[in-house]
Structure formats: C-alpha cells, structure tokens
C-alpha cells in the first residue's frame, strides 16, 4: 500500500527490536487437496467437479454453493487463458520471480474457475487478458504449489 509520510513523530528513546515469527507449518491436506498436490508432483493439474457441473481449480473440497462434499476429480490444463492480471514492478523477496512479473488468474482448459499464478514475461506490454499460458514445472517437485515454478505465455499467442 502506499507509505505517505504525513506525520513525523518524536519517538525519543522508545525501545524497539526485531520480532521474527517463523514456523515450518506441517499441513495435512485431506484427500482432495492431497490429490491436487499429488498431481503437481506428477505434472498433472486437477480440479473438482461441483454440483452445478463447474470444474473448480484448485479443487474445492466442498461445493461452494451448497457446502456438500465434492468427490470427483478431473484432469484439466495444462494450458489455459488469463482471466485477469496485475503487473508487479518491484517483486518482493518472498515472490517466486526476481524480475518484474505478472500475477495472473488463469482458467485452465477444461476448468470453469481460474487459479492464481505468477507469469514470467519480459514486459507488461505482452500480457493481456485472454492470452494463453502454460505452467513451467520446477525441476524438483514434492507435491507443493511451488511445483509450478511459474507460468509463461504460449509461443505465438502474446496477445
């Protein structure tokens, strides 16, 4: 957000110190999210089929409308189209890409809802809603969302 300097406070000798909150959380996935992560490890993208027939990616464990259990997983992608995007000029150290990149919501082929990813692109000008993209898989995959290293535009479809 924007850091406007509108106030200058005389802090005096108020004590301050770094506080680091860090933990390697271990999350149990349950079968649906587990299957999604298994798929990432195997370079396969899956979504879950909702009661209204929509395919949701990442798979929802429960129907977003009725709340009922969802049980059917289907393969989607790996390519898809950008449904919206945002250009980051100054990536954060925690972001997957060091150079300016685009956040994208990408609707995979066969899916009805888009998922979030980071798109590697040389400039903002080549990114557009509707452009086709594909995942670039990490060399070492372990069943983690980071198994998708990032996304790239499909050649010849730079909007």
């Amino acid at each position, binding site marked *: *957000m*924007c850091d406007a300097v509108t106030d200058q406070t005389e802090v005096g000798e108020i004590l301050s110190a770094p506080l680091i909150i860090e933990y390697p959380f271990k999350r149990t996935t349950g079968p649906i999210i587990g299957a999604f992560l298994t798929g990432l490890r195997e370079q396969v993208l899956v979504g879950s089929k909702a009661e209204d027939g929509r395919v949701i990616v990442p798979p*929802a464990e429960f129907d*977003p409308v009725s709340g009922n259990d969802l049980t059917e997983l289907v393969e989607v992608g790996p390519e898809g189209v950008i449904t*919206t995007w945002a*250009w980051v000029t100054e990536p954060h150290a925690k*972001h997957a890409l060091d150079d300016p990149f685009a956040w994208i919501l990408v609707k995979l082929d066969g899916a009805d809802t888009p998922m979030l990813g980071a798109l590697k692109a040389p400039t903002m000008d080549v990114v557009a809603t509707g452009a086709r993209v594909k995942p670039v898989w990490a060399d070492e995959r372990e069943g983690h969302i980071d198994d998708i290293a990032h996304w790239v535009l499909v050649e010849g479809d730079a909007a």
Partner: protein
Amino acid sequence: MRDIAVISFAQTPARRSVPELNEVEMLMPAVHDALTQVDMTIDDIGFTCSGSTDYLAGTAFSFVSTLDAVGPWPPIQESHVEMDGAWALYEAWVKLQLGEIDTALVYAYAKSSPGDLPMVLTRQLDPITVGPLWADSVSLAALQARSLIDSGKATEADMAEVVARSRKDALNNPKAQLAWDRSAEDHLATDYHIAPLRKGDCPPITDGAAAIVLAAGDVARSKVKRPAWIRGIDHRVDPIHLGLRDLTVSESTRIAAEKAGVADGKVDIAELHAPFSHQELILKEAIGLGDDVAINPSGGALAANAMMTAGLIRIGEVATRISNGEADRGVAHATSGPCLQQNLVTVLEGDA
C-alpha cells in the same frame, strides 16, 4: 427490533506508525473519549465488545492486555471478535436486542506498522494452495481492478476521480492520514504501483483505534440530542478464492444491503470501506447508491485505513453526521478479507 443508536464515536488520529505507544496506550484515549462524550464510565456500560487481530503486530492474545484500557474491574460482560470492530458492533447490537442491558461499548484497534502489512495479509489466504505464493493484498486488489476495467464497468479515469475526491475530502478530516488536493489527471500521470493500480489508488498503512458507545431507546435520547438509530444491519461472506467469484461485483455486499434495508428510504451519505479506489465503484453498485449520495465525506479508507478499525470508523462517521444534522439517513459499510470478501452494511437514521 429494539431501537439502538450510536451515541458517541471517537477515533485516534490515523498515523503511519505510532511507535511510542503500545496497543493499550494507543487505544485508551479513544475509549476514554467515547465514554466522556456521553458522560459515562465503564460502570455505566452493560456490555463491551472489541475487534482486533493478532497477526498485524505479531502478538498472540493481543486483545487480552488491551482490555486493560477499559478497566474491567469489577468484572464486566465482555467479548471479542477476531474481526473488524464493525462486527464487534454487530455483536453488541445483538446483545442489546435481548433487552437486558441498555448500553454497550465497542472498540477496535490495530497496529499494522510493526509488520509488512501486504505480506502479513497473505496469511489470510488458503494456506496450502495460495498462501505459499505470497500474493500480497495490493496485487490481489490489482487483479480485481483489472477485471473491473476489462468488464467495461469502469475506467482508470473513474478510479482517479474516486482518488481525487476522497483525498480532497480528507482535507476536512483532522483525523485523516493522507489528504491532498490533486486532480484526477495528476493522479493518472503517476506511475503504476502494481498495474493497473497506482499508489494513489491504494490505502495508507495506518495505526489507530476507535470506539463507539451504543445505547437503547430512552437512554440514547437522554444522552444525546439526535441519536443515530441503527435501522438495519446485516453481514454476508463470499468464498475466499478469487476464482470462485465474479470480481467485478460484490454479491455479499448486495445481499447485506438488501437485508439491511438500504432501499427503504433516501440515502444522504454513505461511508464505504473501500481500501482501493475501484472497490468504491463496486460497492456503490452493490449497495445500490445513486449519484446523489455523498460517498465517503471523511475521505474513506483511502485517507486512513487502520485494519480492524476502518469498518467501525465508517459507522462512526455516518453516525456523527446524522447526530450533527448534516444528514438524515446514511449507509455505513465494512469489509474484511481479500477483494471485498466479507461485508457488513449498516443503515443509520436520525429522528425527523
């Protein structure tokens, strides 16, 4: 429903950082001010409810020590929500409906300055499929803004008008953090921050606190000349995954506005908790506000956006304008979660 009114409202000056005070020290003046305005102490309050969240400053159980600000001795009836103070007000309103007490104190506070707020807010996201990407709150809002622009419902120029008007209005708000008189064109001439958002489209990061006193019926009338009656209040939530929502609309806001009865009368003013400029446009449509409604005369969240507090402040801003006669009927809105996920709408009205 029982007649319940906002009878006082206080807020600390919104600032980028308040390092010289801890949370209870920052909060106390707001609580004291709200009580003093109506000549009350905690002994006159039937129920106290607060809103805050531990993640902002990185301290677990932060609300436990901030409770000291009210002096809860002898023991009091009290509760806390890990939500914006607007929802604490909702809980207090429900409690007042039971008819057992006549007054309630509601407060909220946040120190966002200790952490890297947009990154801290990534901890709200699905912890397995989204959280590890560290998609910050500004980036997510930018995705929403792009959706809105792509849909043809709004342009960057429309967003710029919101920015220019809000910050200019904030010049009249002594508690505001970010105020200026710059044209929409000047704003559009600035660089993108996270495109399509410019820095000016984004809220400031704010430390601050606010408090409100609610009172029922005759107690309210005995304390203030023109109580701001809560005529309707409702809140709704959407799924968190952006892919499961049409980002160009706010369905949960629409339902809440309908249930709160916004359309039952003429709306003079609205205070909308729209942290990002394009969100005001989405909310305006969802609530069904016409062009004749004065939106965010305080400057809104673009002028000051203390987390957990900004929604409660919207209610206070509307109530103040009703109590002082500037408006007869107004709408206050609060939001929580990425891209307007959860929304609360309150309709306030003064006696004719």
